[in-house]
């Protein structure tokens, strides 16, 4: 079909009109092949301007539109809508930036005019090679897979479940609740945990829109956002498996504690009465805090930062729960002496310092220490340490509680592979963006929440669980279709040599290999259109829609005239 390109130059008031000889630009492009009309207008982005363009398109039966005006970052969207309203495919349009990157960067009118002509000609040349691009719509299922039945998984499931959205909650162990079920109380309000947890677990079990799998693991997650195919394996006698489709996956698999056996300095596993924080929580929950010999401890040392050097990060919650332990001890054992051995007190946030201030008191010591070692001295334990001045000191204690670093679970890397996401700092799941995307991953539709993403307290875990809920509820809407990116990569079957270089460079896993045809195939639902695969492809099989070689070549040609 014959191309009829309409070219419109915006005066942008004096911003372009006074810096560029627009008439000269018009003259320079009028006789270009395919150009049906060239006009100028005072302000094309205004209501009048947009109407003018729409009328012009209809009047001249234009097939393509070129506007020479401001930056596409300002008004590309605006003029694409004008095209759509006037009946042209919005991608048959090009905006030449003759303002920010032309009129405004020089005082020399001749120079600016010459460049404006160059840029407008480039846009005209390019638009000739534009193809219509259509928005796609994909069906999706609103159901969600939640992996991990701890506080994060429970919260997410309860928030998301509804008659038109089924939740599949898969828990590795035989019961729901995760680590928090071990705690009698949680900081800073010291409210009782078990009732709350029992209630929540009951809500989950009674919710007919949540299907719970315990003693189960996720074996396979295939597909993409809106259309994941999941396989769950159960550890029952039949070793049965379940298969179902979901639109999104939430990894809320929590964390584990550093094993103090890995370092010899704390005597863990060798000396009696050296326990980890989790062991102490259980001891406390059972109602009896006792030594191996059945007696109550008169003096307890709480040792912070166990494993911090090995893991290389601060686990955020240990200082606070150590303070909680002081309170547990004070509540249950009168006159118990407690000493906290720490390096830096980590108590950020509006309420935590008050909790600390209130915990300090009679018979509670906070000893800043280094080079700590736990040894035996007679019946008791001996804490050897260097104090703030570097002097070697000793303190006897009946019991030592170790606050170990929080670590990713042992199956984290395996799960990451199953879900096609990466592992990041500390071995935890990698978020999409440290600041703005803490709970999403580079794989669209796969979310992370809670300690699986990194050490954090319960409040932050619940916020993340609700944040994931927000993401899923706003993007996976029952009945609504998903619109993936349009300007994506495509790989020619004939030219692809099956080298897989494109697959290697794709940050999103958007390219898969067709074993039968031995060629790479782009998943149009996932591709984000960066063009990395195009550059990596040695045979020119990969092209990027709207940024093809031919299109860019047109701009290049004008650049070197």
């Amino acid at each position, binding site marked *: 079909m014959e191309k009829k390109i309409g070219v419109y130059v915006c005066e942008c*008031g*004096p*911003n372009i009109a006074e810096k560029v000889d627009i008439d000269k630009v018009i003259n320079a492009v009028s006789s270009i092949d395919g150009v049906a009309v060239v006009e100028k207008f005072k*302000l094309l*982005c205004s*209501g009048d301007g947009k109407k003018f363009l729409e009328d012009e398109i209809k009047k001249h039966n234009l097939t393509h539109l070129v506007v020479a005006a401001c930056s596409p*970052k300002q008004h590309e*969207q605006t003029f694409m809508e004008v095209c759509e309203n006037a009946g042209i495919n919005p991608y048959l349009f090009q905006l030449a930036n003759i303002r920010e990157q032309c009129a405004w960067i020089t005082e020399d009118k001749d120079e600016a005019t010459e460049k404006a002509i160059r840029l407008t000609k480039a846009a005209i040349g390019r638009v000739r090679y534009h193809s219509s691009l259509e928005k796609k719509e994909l069906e999706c299922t609103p159901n969600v897979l939640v992996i991990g039945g701890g506080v994060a998984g429970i*919260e997410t499931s309860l*928030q*998301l479940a*509804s008659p038109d*959205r089924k939740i599949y909650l898969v828990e590795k162990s035989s019961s729901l609740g995760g680590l928090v079920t071990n705690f009698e109380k*949680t*900081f800073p*309000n010291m*409210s009782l945990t078990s009732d709350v947890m029992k209630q929540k677990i009951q809500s989950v079990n009674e919710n007919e829109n949540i299907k719970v799998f315990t003693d189960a693991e996720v074996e396979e997650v295939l597909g993409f956002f809106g259309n994941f195919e999941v396989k769950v394996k159960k550890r029952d006698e039949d070793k049965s498996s379940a298969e179902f489709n979901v639109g999104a996956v939430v990894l809320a698999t929590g964390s584990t504690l550093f094993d103090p056996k890995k370092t010899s300095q704390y005597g863990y596993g060798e000396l009696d009465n050296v326990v980890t924080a989790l062991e102490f929580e259980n001891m406390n929950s059972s109602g009896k805090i006792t030594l191996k010999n059945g007696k109550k401890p008169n003096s307890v040392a709480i040792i912070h930062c166990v494993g911090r050097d090995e893991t*290389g*990060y*601060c*686990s*955020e919650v240990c200082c606070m729960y150590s303070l909680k332990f002081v309170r547990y001890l004070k509540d249950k054992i009168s006159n118990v002496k407690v000493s906290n051995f720490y390096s*830096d*007190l*980590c108590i*950020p*946030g*509006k*309420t935590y*310092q*008050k909790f600390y201030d209130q915990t300090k008191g009679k018979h509670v010591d906070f000893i800043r220490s280094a080079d700590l070692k736990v040894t035996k001295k007679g019946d008791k334990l001996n804490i050897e340490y260097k104090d*703030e*001045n570097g002097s070697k000191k000793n303190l006897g204690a009946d019991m030592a509680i170790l606050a170990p670093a929080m670590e990713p679970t042992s199956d984290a890397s395996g799960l990451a592979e199953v879900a096609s996401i990466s592992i*990041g*700092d*500390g071995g935890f799941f990698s978020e999409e963006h*440290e*600041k*703005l995307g*803490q*709970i999403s991953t580079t794989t669209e539709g796969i979310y992370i929440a809670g300690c699986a993403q*990194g*050490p*954090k307290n*319960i*409040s932050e875990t*619940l*916020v*993340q*669980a*609700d*944040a994931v*809920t*927000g*993401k899923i*509820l*706003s*993007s996976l*809407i029952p009945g*609504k279709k998903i619109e993936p990116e349009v300007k994506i990569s495509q790989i020619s079957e004939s030219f692809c040599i099956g080298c897989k270089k494109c697959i290697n460079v794709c940050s999103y896993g958007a390219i898969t290999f067709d074993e039968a045809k031995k060629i790479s195939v782009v998943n149009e639902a996932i591709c984000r259109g960066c063009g990395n695969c195009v550059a990596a492809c040695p045979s020119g099989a990969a092209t990027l829609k709207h940024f093809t070689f031919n299109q860019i070549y047109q701009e290049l040609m004008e650049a070197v005239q």
Partner: protein
Amino acid sequence: MNEKEGYLDVLVIGAGIAGIEASSLLSNSGRKVHLIEKTSYTGGNVIKFEEVFSNMECSTCMVAPRQQELLQDKNINLLTLAEVEDVKGSFGNFTVKIRKKARYVDLQNCIGCNACFEPCPVSLKNEFEEGLSERKAIYVPCAGALPNVPMIDTENCIRFKGKDCKACQEACAFEAIDFNQKDEQLELKIGAIIAATGSGTFDPKQTPEYGYGKIDDVYTALEFERLYASNGPTEGNINLKNGKAPKSVAIIHCIGRDQKGYCSAVCCMYSLKFNHYLKSKIPDIKITEFYTDLCIPGKSHQKFYEKMKETGTDLIRIQEAKVEKQGKGITVKYDTGKKKDSLPVDMVILATSIEPRDDTSELAKVLGISLDEYGFFKEEHLEASSVTTSKPGVFIAGCVQGPKNIQNSVSQANAAVGKILSLSK
């Protein structure tokens, strides 16, 4: 709340990073959002930072695409220079009165060419730049501010004080300046409210031992951010008042911590960030960080600290510090508990505590929610999801609820949206 019975529109108060993220997410779900912002620009405090920890990403690059989307999003009704005056009703059924101050510049006609600034005869200190540079009575707070449309500061504009000045209007080729604009009062029917109005910072004039406001070259963290910013008052050149580059800097943590009674969670990290800032501009500079406890929780933050240690910076744990003038320079007198010593430096940066904004208590009254003992908005349960308040339908997100970093603010914003969307299913 039944969807069929209530209003679906959401009111988001505050267009900082939390407000922007909440609005964006709500818009994605198809909800209409009224985003109310008190100032003339979006982005809040985050756009004042050149880079953010710990990936040292350019803050503008991070936020600008979001701000731009905001302006073009059909579901988001951005109202700048607007405040919430009254809230009546309940979850699903709020009637909100908004007072929108006149900008005196037409948002549609203005194309952001800035021609109106130059002829304005009034010059005064630019609040956005922490007073380090000047602006006119018709102004945008900084280069790249969005929306890129100026406002007239009527308290300082001589026309609004009675003189017949039309300098800005005459310079405008787009008829965008309209002195006849009036403040508006709007009434909105709203289903839910998210308050994300952010926080302020402790004024070190309250702690005179640090010499702020009396000794030259003693800066607050925000002032230093603006000094380093490439779109700031010195285009990113870090110079002393005498024009020379500093050879030594002291960064003092925990300014105001004793007065406020809590740890502000972000200062250690941004103080380490400042280390990077300084080294990148002045590689030989000697930096000393005076701190009490190093607060760097999280999987990525200690790595950041280790990198900073490699640059040769000294970290000195102290119990007390004082900043005094010494000849032409400054001396930091400090007490480690073990010894008392002093350090001569060219410049001091004070890492000031985060505190509630002055207008937080007023807004709490309007919304019908309470403040906690520190003056931040009070969450319903500190150990549950911290975004709900005692008033159903009113949610909070970001530093208005308490000091926190950007990622936690954004997660709270998303969580507030999660609560709204799940409660209305």
